[in-house]
Every structure is written in C-alpha cells, then in structure tokens.
C-alpha cells in the first residue's frame, strides 16, 4: 500500500527494528520502504535511552557480574513485576543466546552484543533515522556518555532539567491539538481508558492551569505517548506496535495508523485516517 510522504516511527518500532526476530525486522523494513521518508522524534530518543539502552546497560552489567548465564537468567527471573518491561526485553535477548554453547561463551557473546549496542547503537539509529527536534526535548538531546566501563544515559526526568527543558513551548505551540485530544479523551468510556490516557487527560488540565511549570510533572515520563503523538503530527502516517493509546491520538491528529503485530506471521494492521 504505497502512501508516499512521511512515516513516523514510535519507540516500539525502532526497538523492534533492532532486536526483534528477522521476520519482524523484514516487515518493518518493507513498510518503511513504501514511504518517501521515515522519521522519529527527540522524545522517542529519550525513551530509547532510558528504556532500551538502559535495559541493555543492565544486561551488560549483569554479564560482567556473573560467571554463568544460568545465574544471570535466574537474576532476571527474579525481577519484580513492576519491571516486567525490562524483564521482557532482557529475556527476549537472553532466550535466544541460550543453548548455543558453554556458559562462558554465551556470557561473552552477550557481553559483546550489549557492549556493541551501548558503544554504537545510538549512533547507528541516529544515522538510520531522522530525529525531529521540534519538541525541544532536552533529555533526548544528550548522547550516551561513556566513562570507563560505565554508560551514562543523562538525566531521566524533565523536573531535573527544568531550566533547560523547553517542552512547555512545544506544548504551547500545540495548544489546539491538546484541546482536541482532551475533548476526544473525555468522550471515551472510563473503562476503556488506559492509565496513560487518563494521565494525558489530567496532564492537559495541569498544562492549561500553569503551562510554564509543566516540567515538574515530568511529561517525558508520564505522558510520553502524548508528546510523541504531537511530535509526529507533521507525518501523515504513524507506525507503532502499541495501538492502545496511538489509535486515539492518530484519530484526533488525522493520521493513518499502522500497527505492527508482535506475531511475525501476521501482516501490519491499517487504520486509515478519515477522508477530509
């Protein structure tokens, strides 16, 4: 289905294009080829750093701490439920390294992979995709800093860099869209609203009340999907794995939504925008 023009890639798609199964990677690659250009945003970059690369760092540190991959697996199994996402990303990585060779070899492979990702992963992504800087997300601007064997992802909360973060200006520029989104969210039945959507609704209220101090509510962490949606509004199509929130934002912003199922045998799902 040739769409032409731009496709916005959200965090889940970029992670999938990196470490998911070859079939999924192929699906994503083919989809991107249908568009004139593929881009993403600084809030996505911030999410990549603090979600994906931070998890890779966790795995890298574990690979240096343990002597056997089975011990490392047990450690990951013991992660608390709140860190399920981390568990899932790490386990997805580990499950495929398992059963290949002896413990030391597997551990070394894991260490090489994770170290390579930490050293060059972000560079590869910034060369591969265009990162739009319209949101002025300060947290996304900084690159991963290497100090000895440690990798510093930079500050993770807007409230800690409120003097440098200009996200309130970006939100002010998109005030009309925010109002439309809030209006749309109000009409959704409460039982169908995810926590993120509820957060977004509340956040827009807070923003309306006091736009200049909005950083203290850490929007990049609490309502990242909303910010990413606003970053993507210049693109007619939005590509994601998680449609729960995106389907609402795309409807308001009049975008085509393309959803990549995690099952590699399934084709992408299309939710076309309404004709004007």
């Amino acid at each position, binding site marked *: 289905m040739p769409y032409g023009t731009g496709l916005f890639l959200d965090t889940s798609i970029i992670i999938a294009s990196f*470490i*998911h199964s070859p079939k999924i990677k192929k699906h994503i690659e083919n989809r991107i080829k249908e568009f004139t250009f593929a881009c993403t945003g600084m809030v996505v970059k911030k999410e990549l750093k603090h979600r994906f690369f931070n998890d890779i760092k966790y795995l890298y540190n574990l690979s240096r701490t*343990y*002597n056997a991959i089975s011990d490392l697996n047990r450690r990951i199994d013991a992660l608390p439920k709140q860190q399920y996402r981390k568990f899932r990303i790490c386990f997805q990585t580990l499950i495929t390294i398992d059963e*290949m060779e002896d413990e030391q070899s597997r551990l*070394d492979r894991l260490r090489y*992979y994770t*170290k390579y990702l930490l050293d*060059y992963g972000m560079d590869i992504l910034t060369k591969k995709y265009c990162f739009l800087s319209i949101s002025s997300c300060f947290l996304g601007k900084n690159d991963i800093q290497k100090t000895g*064997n440690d990798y510093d992802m930079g500050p993770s909360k807007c409230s800690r860099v409120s003097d440098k973060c200009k996200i309130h200006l970006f939100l002010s520029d998109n005030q009309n869209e925010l109002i439309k989104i809030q209006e749309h969210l109000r009409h959704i039945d409460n039982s169908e609203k995810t926590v993120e959507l509820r957060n977004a609704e509340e956040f827009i209220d807070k923003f309306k009340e006091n736009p200049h101090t909005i950083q203290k509510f850490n929007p990049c962490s609490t309502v990242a999907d909303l910010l990413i949606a606003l970053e993507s509004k210049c693109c007619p199509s939005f590509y994601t794995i998680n449609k729960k929130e995106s389907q609402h934002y795309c409807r308001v912003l009049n975008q085509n939504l393309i959803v990549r199922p995690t099952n590699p045998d399934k084709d992408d799902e299309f939710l076309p925008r309404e004709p004007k």
Partner: protein
Amino acid sequence: MNAFISTGENVDIKNNSCNTIISSEIEPLKSSYYAPINIETSNIVEKQITEKEKSRDIPKPKHPVSSQIYAINKYIGNIKLNVNKLVDATNEDDRIDKGNAGMLILECLGKLWEYRGVQPESWGMIINFLQCALYNVIFEDITIEQSNTIKTIFEKYLHVATDSDDINGVLESLENIGFDPWQVLSGFRE
C-alpha cells in the same frame, strides 16, 4: 603447583585444590582470561577477586604468545582458503563443495572464537558477529553475490589488529547481503 583463577570474574578454586586443568600456553580458550598463581596464596587472591568483582572490572585481554599468534594466523589462513573454495564452488554452482567450504569456514571461526581472550575486544566482536550471522546459513544455497561479499569481508576485516571501523564494516557488509548478525539476539528460532 599452579592453579588458574580469573583476573576479574571466575574463581576456579575449591577447597584449596585446583579444579581447572592446567593448560599449556598453546591452549588459548576461556582460560586466556586466567593467570597462574601459587596455590598457597589462593585465599588472599580469592579475596582480591571478590573485591574486584564488585568493582566490575573487565579483565584486560592478555597479549597472545607466539604459539597463539601462529594458531590464529593458521585459522585465518584456513578460512581464507575455504572462502576461495566457496567462491569457486558458487561460480560452478557445486552445492556439495559450497556446503563443505561453508562448514569448514564455520569450524575455523569456532576455533578463532576460542582465542577471544588474547585478542582486542573489537576482534572478539567481529568473530562473534560473523559466527552468529553465518552459523545457520545454508551454504549450499548461497549466491555468487553473497559468496563474493563473504570473501571481501574475510579479506578486508579478518586480521589480527581490528578496530571499531572494522566491526561496523563487517556488520554493514553482512546486512547488505541479507545475513543477520543480530539473529542470535533477536529470535532466530521463531
């Protein structure tokens, strides 16, 4: 008596006895991270290791001794020989020869992998990526373009002194011919 303990991560001493077979210098292997110590001092060293583990220092690779350099060069030479055979077999569309050459290349890569502890990290990364990208390739089905690229990769990047540019070059070349160096990380058993 000599025992082998890790300089950073492994402790192979139990009850003051050595449970690791003492390898000669020719044995590179995982024990290339290891350094010989006197058994009487093992308790002291064990304590030091624990402290070092806490600091998460990565063991620096030892420099290869001459016999190890000889072995590494021998396996690299074998790989290059078999890569040429692979290219010839691909040009002649001889599936059996393609398969044989491919399997020997993988075998030599496996041997080289054992020397990762005495080589720079970038070298180990390259061998890892090559092994992971090639190990489930059906060499009988390989195309002329793929075999020529494999040859270029091994000639250009598989040498003793490697750096980050070499790793990126290997990755790019492998991905350009449809091989996935990340497949070990990304679920090839789907």
